[in-house]
C-alpha cells in the first residue's frame, strides 16, 4: 500500500516512534535502574520510576536561567525526534545521523547558554563525547553503503542477509561508541546517570523543572533510536521472525550496556577520545578493507 508515493509502513514507523518511542524509552530507563540496583544487591525503584520523576519535574516551579536555554532544549528534543522518525520511516540513514548530531549540538548550546561554570564544563565534555563517537558513526554509514549500495534503511531492513554479515567489526565498533552515546560508565564524562554528583551534574546542572524533564524525554527517544540502529544490523527480509531477532539483539545489547555501566569506573576524557578513535580506525578500517576485497 502506498500513501503520497511512500510505503504505508514508513508512516506507521514514524507514528510508532513518536508515540510508542518515549514509552519504551521510559520503560528501558526504569529497567536500567532496576537491573543496576539488582547488580548492586539493592531492591531498587519501581520500573515506572522514570515516569514519576518526569511528572514530578514537570510540576516543579519554573526557574529557567534564560529563554535561549529553553529554546535550545526544545530544539534538542525536536531534532532527536525528527532523526528517530527518519530512521523508523526507513529513510536515509545518513540523514538520521546528521539530524541526530544537530540535536546533540543543541544540547551543548543549551549547556553553554546558562553561562554557569559547571554547565559550561559539562558542555565542553559533551563536545568531547560527540568528537569521540562521530567518526565511528560515520564509518557505520560508509560501511552500510559499501555493503548494501544504499543509505536507505528500508532496503537494508529488507535485504537478503542481515547487514552484520558484512559489517561484523563495524558493529563491534558501534557497540563501543554506543556506551559513549548513551553516556554510560566508563564514558559518562559529560553527565553521570547514576552517581548524580558529577561536578554537580555536568551539562544539565542549570536545567530544572520542565527543562530537565524535556532532557529526560529526549534521552528516552535517543535510547530507542540508538537501539534501532543496533537492531538494523540484525534485520533481514522484512519478516516478523527477523524483526523479533532484531529486537532481541537490541535488548541484549541494552543489557550489555547496563553490565558495562555497573562494572567500570569512569575514564579520563583523553582515554575516551583516543580509544574511540583507535577503535574506529582499526575495526572500521579493517572492515572497510574487507568490503573492498570481497
Amino acid at each position, binding site marked *: 500500500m502506498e500513501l503520497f508515493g511512500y510505503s504505508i509502513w514508513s508512516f506507521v514507523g514514524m507514528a510508532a516512534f513518536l508515540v510508542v518511542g518515549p514509552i519504551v524509552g521510559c520503560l528501558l530507563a526504569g529497567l536500567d*535502574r532496576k537491573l543496576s540496583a539488582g547488580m548492586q544487591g539493592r531492591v531498587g525503584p519501581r520500573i515506572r*520510576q522514570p515516569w514519576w520523576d518526569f511528572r*514530578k519535574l514537570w*510540576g516543579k*516551579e519554573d526557574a529557567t536561567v534564560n529563554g535561549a536555554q529553553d529554546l535550545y532544549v526544545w530544539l534538542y528534543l525536536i531534532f532527536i525526534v525528527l532523526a528517530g522518525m527518519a530512521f523508523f520511516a526507513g529513510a536515509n540513514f545518513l540523514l538520521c545521523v546528521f539530524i541526530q548530531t544537530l540535536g546533540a549540538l543543541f544540547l551543548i548550546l543549551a549547556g553553554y547558554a546558562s553561562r554557569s561554570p559547571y554547565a559550561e564544563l559539562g558542555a565542553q565534555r559533551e563536545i568531547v563525547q560527540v568528537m569521540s563517537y562521530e567518526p565511528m558513526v560515520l564509518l557505520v554509514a560508509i560501511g552500510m553503503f559499501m555493503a548494501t549500495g544504499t543509505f536507505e534503511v528500508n532496503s537494508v531492513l529488507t535485504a537478503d542477509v542481515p547487514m552484520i554479515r558484512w559489517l561484523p567489526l563495524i558493529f563491534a565498533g558501534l557497540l563501543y561508541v554506543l556506551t559513549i552515546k548513551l553516556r554510560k560508565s566508563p564514558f559518562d564524562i559529560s553527565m553521570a546517570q547514576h552517581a*548524580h554528583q558529577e561536578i554537580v*551534574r555536568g551539562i544539565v*546542572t542549570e536545567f530544572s*523543572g520542565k527543562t*530537565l524533564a524535556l532532557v529526560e524525554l529526549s534521552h528516552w527517544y535517543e535510547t530507542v533510536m540508538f537501539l534501532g540502529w543496533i537492531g538494523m544490523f540484525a534485520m533481514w527480509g522484512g519478516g516478523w521472525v527477523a524483526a523479533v531477532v532484531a529486537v532481541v539483539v537490541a535488548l541484549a545489547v541494552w543489557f550489555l550496556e547496563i553490565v558495562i555501566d555497573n562494572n567500570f569506573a569512569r575514564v579520563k576524557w583523553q582515554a575516551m577520545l583516543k580509544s574511540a578513535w583507535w577503535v574506529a580506525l582499526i575495526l572500521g578500517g579493517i572492515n572497510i578493507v574487507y568490503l573492498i576485497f570481497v
Partner: protein
Amino acid sequence: MSYVSKSPWVIHYDGSSCNGCDIEVLAALTPLYDAERFGVVNTGNPKHADIFIVTGGVNAQNAPIIKQIYDQMLEPKIVVACGACACGGGVYQSCYNVMHEGTRAVIPVDAYVPGCAVKPESIIDAVVAGIDLLEEKAKKMKKNPADKDRTDADAGHGVHASVANVDDVPGAGSADVR
C-alpha cells in the same frame, strides 16, 4: 497523590560537627537500607532536589551556604534536619561559633530527626514523613501558582511538623540554654 511524593530527590549538606550523621545519610543509600526503593535519588544539585537534608551543626561560616542551597531549590521543597547537631547544636551547642538553634536559625525546617548519630531508619522515616508535606505544598502550588509558599520570611518559625518533638532531642530546642 501528586508525583512529587513518588520521586523525592534529596540534596544533602553536612555542616560542622563530627560527620557521624553525614555517614548515616550515605548509609541510607547503601544496599541494606536502599532509599532508592522509594524513588529517593541523592543529587548534588539544589536545582534538582526536593528535600534538603541538613546534618551537623550550623555555624556562622556555613549559615550563608545553607541559605544559598535552600534558595536555589525550587518549590515544592522541604527541609529535614537530621541529628542532634542540625536540630539544635547537639553536643557542640555551647561552642562559641555554633548556632544553638541549629538549622532553623537560617532556614525554615519541616522535620526534625533525633539521634546522635541519626539512624538510617529514622532518616528514611523522616523523608517519608516529609513526603506528605511536599504533597501538601504541591497541592497549594497547583491551586495558587503565584503563592509559592516561600517561607523565607519566617525562617526559624516555619516548623510545620516534626518527626520527633524538638524537646526530645538531646541538646536541641533549648534556645535559652546560654
